[in-house]
């Protein structure tokens, strides 16, 4: 009787270990779409997907320090390049693009009409911090447009920035088009080279998920959320 119980215990433990899980590290701006994609993937294939969202650079650091990740989705090329250079990934492909807009709280209390308004010292303006792709893109955009924005905060990730705009603590911010959600209004900015989202499978296990993201269904989800085609 006792031996049977011990046997069952061991088998359950082993069984738990053999369930496949795909560990995905994805840029913060992919939170909505990847959560949806992962859930559909699991329903279809029965394989669990473990999602880890953060700034692309933070994720890059984790991978380079040896974190066990199967799939890496970055919001720009430079972070992915460093992962590839380090040998953690062999190939990476563009799978989506994203561009910036000026986000303002509902009602546009700051009366923002364009990039030039961001120079106004009375406005509370936020962008993403150095090294976060959203922020780098914003700074490139501002420089190209010759605008000296009076920035009040460099948020460490884009979701924090969005929250501050939503609550009205900031009057305006440069965020991805896909981050607008329902409560923010957007002001268009001049055309600019979009940020290219890169996808790479770091292990064999991740390949299947990568393929799924790049499939018809995956692309459909991305487009619906506002991401551009690769």
């Amino acid at each position, binding site marked *: 009787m006792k031996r049977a119980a011990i046997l069952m215990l061991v088998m359950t433990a082993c069984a738990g270990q053999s369930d496949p899980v795909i560990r995905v590290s994805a840029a913060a701006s992919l939170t909505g779409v990847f959560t949806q994609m992962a859930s559909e993937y699991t329903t279809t294939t029965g394989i669990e997907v473990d999602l880890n969202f953060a*700034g692309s*650079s*933070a994720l*890059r*650091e984790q991978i380079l320090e040896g974190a066990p990740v199967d799939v890496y989705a970055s919001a720009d090329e430079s972070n992915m390049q460093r992962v590839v250079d380090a040998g953690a990934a062999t190939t990476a492909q563009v799978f989506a693009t994203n561009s910036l807009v000026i986000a303002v709280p509902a009602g546009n209390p700051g009366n923002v009409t364009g990039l030039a308004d961001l120079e106004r010292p009375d406005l*509370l303006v*936020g962008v993403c*911090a*150095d*090294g976060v792709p959203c922020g780098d893109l914003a700074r490139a955009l501002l420089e190209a447009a010759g605008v000296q924005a009076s*920035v*009040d*905060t*460099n*948020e*460490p990730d884009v979701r*924090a920035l969005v929250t*501050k705009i939503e*609550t*009205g*603590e900031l009057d305006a911010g440069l965020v991805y088009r896909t981050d607008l959600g329902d409560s923010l209004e957007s002001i268009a900015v001049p055309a600019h080279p979009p940020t290219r989202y890169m996808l790479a499978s770091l292990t064999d296990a991740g390949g299947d998920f990568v393929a799924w993201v790049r499939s018809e269904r995956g692309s459909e989800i991305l487009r619906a959320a506002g991401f551009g085609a690769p």
Partner: protein
Amino acid sequence: MRHPRALWLPAVLGLALVGIPVVSLLVRTPWSRLGDLLGSDIAVQALGLSALTSLAAAAAAFVLGVPLAAILARSRFRGRSVLRALITLPMVLPPVVGGAALLYAFGRRGTVGEPIYEATGLVLPFSPWGVILANTFVALPFLVVTVEAGIRNLDSRYESAAATLGAGPWTAFRRVTLPMVTPALLAGTVLAWARALGEFGATVTFAGNLAGRTQTLPLAVFVALEQDRDAALALSVVLVAVSLVVLVALRDRWWTGR
């Protein structure tokens, strides 16, 4: 004293848990480049801002905390334990939650912040004042707890003797109570200052992150961690060094306020 053998292993493991990460940090630090790294604009601004805001927060914690501690220590009203729990809340609250709460209270659209903004145009977040506010919020309980213990341990007969000699409550407080709890005052202030210096979550959530205005040392480390690892290490070493100096200076006056 002879320690039971069974205590040694857990004690050593505990020491290792704390010691090894600190030592690893020191080992990875680019000592030769320390001067350059700490001399960069970002570093200098972060160091200056941290020094200023942490000291201001410690001062604010002292001015607000000592009277609070005195009242908690000597009064006997119902709900006193609830009040004490409230004061110590920032100690256990996750700092980011604290920052969010501060935003809801003192942000531009906050309960108190909005009327102030409408009336005076004053904006607390995204300014050094916001940093000081966030730092005081997390540091205040440390001072209150330490000083309250000190006053509680003080024999109230000294204050009685002072009264019989003609000292009113304020005079007795100033000339008998406070001087007799100087160790607790000191320990409490230094603890509050150290806590303010290391504060991150509430600061970044409430005050934001801008070099020279709101980017304190911990924030600079966080941001640099992903860009310029060496800079992050250099700034981290400064924080570790300052913390060690503080703790060694306090020695065993930690919590007892003796």
